[in-house]
């Protein structure tokens, strides 16, 4: 069975993690989703498209192993195999870091396509971590996508920017420009969801956000201390012990691969009455 799986040609599916707004959890989600896919046995590579502001390497904990990068490969200064960093925890996971010194114009459409085509020969999932904004870097990250994960916080500016990005996905991508092609399959991933604040009417509900954006829901990631802890130690949250956030990411990953998983809106354990009375000392 395992041998059979390994001999199947790679799926070669390009998934962009995007949002428009910065700071909503794109890189955290790109790390968690790619590690989750790899954990389930899919050969996965995650690419950092944020040229000049490299951060995926830190989130993945491989910042000291970067020799060559994505831009070196595009410009022909290094071969793809030299630039790919094999994850130490999962042998199905690779990271393609970006350059810290060049500017985003180094990303050419032809160059990106060539690298993606080469990666499709080997990987099932190619996860593209988009920079914030809707400029060149973000456009390059989404252009060749088959699927999109639009990371959204239940907050007005994030939802507005997600709406813009959804518009771009349906007009400024290769699939949109190719006659007869299926459109990019876009799904929303709600992050930093706080059940307590939703219940008290301070935060928009999942239903509110979905009603506005009108795209399917990939998952709901609760606000969680596990996220910062994982990023502190350079480990994708799904590989760092059990937490509600990790569970929610794992469910989202299953849905991404086409498995039907019941939608649960998790939250980290609420502080108990004693904590609430006397304050959270720690």
């Amino acid at each position, binding site marked *: 069975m395992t041998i059979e799986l390994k001999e199947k040609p790679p799926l070669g599916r390009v998934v962009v993690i995007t949002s428009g707004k910065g700071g909503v959890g794109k890189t955290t989600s790109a790390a968690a989703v790619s590690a989750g896919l790899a954990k389930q046995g899919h050969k996965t590579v995650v690419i950092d498209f944020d040229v000049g502001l490299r951060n995926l390497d830190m989130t993945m904990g491989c910042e000291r192993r970067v020799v060559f990068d994505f831009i070196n490969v595009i410009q022909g200064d290094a071969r793809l195999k030299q630039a790919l960093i094999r994850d130490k925890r999962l042998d199905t996971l690779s990271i393609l870091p970006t350059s810290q010194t060049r500017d985003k114009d180094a990303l050419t459409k032809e160059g990106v396509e060539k690298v993606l085509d080469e990666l499709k020969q080997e990987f099932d999932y190619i996860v593209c971590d988009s920079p914030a904004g809707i400029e060149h870097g973000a456009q390059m990250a989404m252009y060749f996508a088959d699927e999109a994960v639009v990371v959204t916080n239940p907050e007005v500016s994030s939802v*507005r920017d997600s709406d813009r990005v959804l518009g771009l996905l349906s007009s400024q991508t290769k699939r949109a420009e190719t006659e007869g092609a299926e459109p990019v399959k876009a799904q929303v991933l709600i992050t930093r969801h706080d059940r307590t604040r939703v219940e008290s009417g*301070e*935060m928009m*509900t999942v239903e509110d956000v979905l009603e*506005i954006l009108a795209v399917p829901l990939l998952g709901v990631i609760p606000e969680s201390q596990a996220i910062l802890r994982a990023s502190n130690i350079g480990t994708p949250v799904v590989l760092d012990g059990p937490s509600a956030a990790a569970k929610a990411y794992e469910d989202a990953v299953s849905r991404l691969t086409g498995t039907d998983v019941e939608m649960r809106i998790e939250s980290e354990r609420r502080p108990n009455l004693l904590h609430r*009375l006397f*304050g*959270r000392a720690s």
Partner: protein
Amino acid sequence: MNLFSFARKPRRARTADTAKDRLQILLAHERSGTGTGEASYLPKLQKDIVAAIRKYVAIGDDDVEVRMERGDQMSSLEINIDLPQAEAGGKAEAAKSGSKAAAKA
């Protein structure tokens, strides 16, 4: 949160509903436009109005002001034209005519 914050805690409005309403109104406009949320025809409209008035009155490029206000039920388009003193039928004071056009959103 401590013992005293229970007593202090003010009764908050359900601001999430406000957030949702604001987004729905804004995005309805942004989606119907060119995608940027701006009414892209406004600069062109301004130019055409200036050209039309210039057939009769000598006005400058900046003498026509076009403004738009988008609301929930109604959107209003406000056009202000500053007419030069000499052309305003010899009246001493500057004439300012305002016209307001309203369109259902």
